């Protein structure tokens, strides 16, 4: 696999201005994150800040799932499994890292180092999730559609069961220092892993939202993206045009899992304790609904759908009992009347340009 930097240089729209153009989107990402971080506290209270945090996490989750489900058309139903892997590893690194380095968890004096630990945990969690994505991606070569859906669903369940079997959480710094590796897997079984400090503030979450969206969108419009879309449209034709199915399917899974892991790791640093049920199908379904409603293949669609679906229960508090019924109906009705989701494979800004088709290449490999 190519490195991220190679990808970016390859897919940059303005190669002549490469040195500048490469950095522009990332600067924009940071600016956007800073804006959210500093502006939102002026507008909303703490409760709504936590809603904004959750919204960010689910945007990352939905956009990443879109890479495999939307772009590549490989229907994964185990995305929560990747999220949970990222979440647990991330939380573990921060929690046990704090215990080893500082002797206690959540000390305000340790916040800067803690945040660095979170970022390290985020990378570790995302990479572990990506490794799992590689393993799950392999069967996708032989399985299509429904079968793959079931295998990935099974994957999520296996992760859940394995998490339930983890040993008790260790909260004693001395014990952790004595046997750090053994302690690290102390994820506290079915009760869930508690006590991870909430280092993921709005800035970090929305920074990753922006990064994920930029990478996903660039991915989509790159030659890899065209390969993904060609696999989704017609696997056999894609293969006939020279698209290496193995490479691209696995790549889609790895990327999706990586950012799924990022989402999970961020989530476990917002004060929400990761628990084994986070890996279960219910969470996976939640994310699938976002992707489908937004449009399979539409990055901005996923963002919008994730926003709507995180906000909706907040606005419909009284209808809590009916919320999931409503989601299910929404999904069915959407498939019956607008089977491509809100935006289909297009982006929000494509709509104003009329019916111009997305440049879906006939499977171009680099």
């Amino acid at each position, binding site marked *: 696999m190519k490195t991220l930097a190679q990808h970016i240089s390859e897919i940059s729209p303005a190669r002549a201005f490469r040195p500048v153009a490469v950095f522009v989107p990332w600067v924009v990402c940071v600016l956007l994150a800073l804006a959210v971080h500093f502006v939102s506290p002026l507008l909303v209270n703490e409760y709504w800040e936590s809603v904004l945090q959750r919204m960010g996490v689910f945007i990352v989750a939905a956009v990443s799932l879109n890479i495999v489900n939307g772009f590549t058309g490989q229907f994964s139903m185990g995305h929560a499994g990747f999220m949970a892997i990222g979440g647990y590893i991330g939380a573990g690194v921060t929690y046990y890292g704090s215990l080893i380095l500082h002797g206690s968890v959540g000390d305000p004096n340790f916040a800067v180092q803690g945040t660095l630990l979170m970022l390290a945990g985020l990378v570790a969690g995302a990479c572990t999730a990506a490794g799992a994505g590689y393993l799950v991606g392999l069967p996708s070569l032989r*399985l299509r559609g429904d*079968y793959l859906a*079931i295998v990935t669903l099974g994957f999520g369940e296996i992760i859940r069961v394995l998490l339930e079997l983890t040993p008790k959480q260790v909260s004693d710094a001395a014990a952790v220092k004595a046997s750090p590796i053994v302690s690290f897997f102390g994820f506290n079984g079915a009760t869930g892993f508690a006590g991870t400090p909430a280092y993921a503030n709005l800035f970090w979450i929305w920074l990753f939202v922006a990064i994920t969206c930029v990478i996903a969108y660039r991915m989509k419009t790159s030659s890899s993206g065209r390969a993904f879309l060609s696999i989704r449209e017609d696997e056999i034709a894609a293969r006939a045009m020279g698209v290496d199915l193995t490479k691209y399917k696995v790549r889609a899974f790895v990327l999706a899992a990586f950012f799924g892991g990022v989402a999970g790791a961020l989530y476990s640093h917002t004060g929400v304790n990761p628990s084994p049920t986070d890996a279960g199908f219910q969470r996976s*379904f939640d994310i699938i609904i976002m992707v489908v409603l937004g449009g399979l293949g539409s990055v901005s669609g996923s963002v919008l759908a994730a926003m709507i679906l995180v906000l909706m229960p907040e606005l419909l508090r009284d209808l809590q009992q009916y919320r999931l019924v409503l*989601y299910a109906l929404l*999904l069915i009705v959407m*498939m019956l009347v607008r089977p491509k989701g809100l935006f289909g494979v297009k982006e929000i800004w494509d709509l104003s340009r009329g019916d111009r088709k997305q440049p879906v290449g006939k499977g171009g490999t680099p």
Partner: protein
Amino acid sequence: MDEFFQILIATVAVGSLYALIALGYTLVYGVLKFINFAHSDVFVLGAWTSFTVSVVVLNKIADPSGVTPWWVVVVAFLSAVTVCGVVGYCIERFAYRPLRKAPRLNVLITAIGVSLLLQNVGQITGPAVARGPEKTSIKDGQTVTQAGDPLATVPFGASPKSMPKLIENVVLNESVMQSGNLAGGAMRGTVVFDKPVTFSEGRQYRLDVTRTVANADGTTRVVVEKLNLDAEPGTFEPGTEIRTTPRRTAAELQGSTYELIRSPRVPIGLIEVIIVVVSLSLMVGLQLLIFRTKLGSAMRALSHNIETAALMGVNTNFVISFTFVLGAVLAASAAFLYPMKYPGLNQTAHGIWVLLGLKAFVAAVVGGIGNVRGAVLGGFLIAAIELFGGWAYAPLKDVYVFALLIAVLLYRPNGLLGRAVTEKV
């Protein structure tokens, strides 16, 4: 070894339930080539329907003897079958039929939607259809009557329930060791036999006692009691005292007749037998339907090519609806039998249900989806792996099932009995 056979019996019972559910997946896959994700939820609906109906009926007849009339069983079964059949029909008619020519992914998503819909509608707590006895209390000198606690609601709600016992799970293969009269004695909680008794190591014994009791008004009635014996192994001469639970004085037992019953090493329950017999007859019936009737050949023709079947004069919409209803009815039958063995009912979206449906689906895939015999084979195989795997190391029993699924799909993607399908280019 005893445990092995006990698990084997459970495997046969659970396996036939899995097989019944798996058949629904396979039938629908056979005609429409897609996985009906909502099938497991139809199964759950069946379990809850038979629960609700049984509770309502038992509450209405309120027989103090606690004996369930046989027809309650029939009513519960028929209502589960009817409700599931109707819901199965509606799912096909309103959710899947409009998408008959849509891409498979859309159908898959719709199926997930239908599944979520059934789960979440079932979780809403609706109005009570059966209530416990009214509660009265005295408040400020006035008698206040409160409605009883709801026993069952429609929709079912999120609180777990327990299936009422419709059929007593009689152990069929227990043996009467001896019978006779109980002799007198004095100590509490003891029983004295009139003949020598031999108890052997590691077995359980029970005493069915029949005695006459005098009522206060001078009449008498006959009481039958089942007492457990805490017996040490060895031979006991007449007159030896043996403890019982619940405790009964020898005076109480004086003059009673008894049957000393030895529990079998591997008990076979009536309910297990019912499950296996009903399931197997349904499977045989299905096999006959598919391979011996005109409708069955229409189903097989349809599974190959819907258009060509239509050209033969087959009413394809009817046959597809029929197949859905058939699958739903099989699921409902399994759903009626399942809580007899495992009476705990969880909320409809509970992980246990979803896993159960998934395992049945795995059974269908492992056997070769679209293949009726494969579904049956897969059902027993999955049950065996789950139960014997759980015997070896219980926490991983769900993992074994999915590991098997992945292994089968990777090495024999069409399942054990499935046929290779080559995709046309």
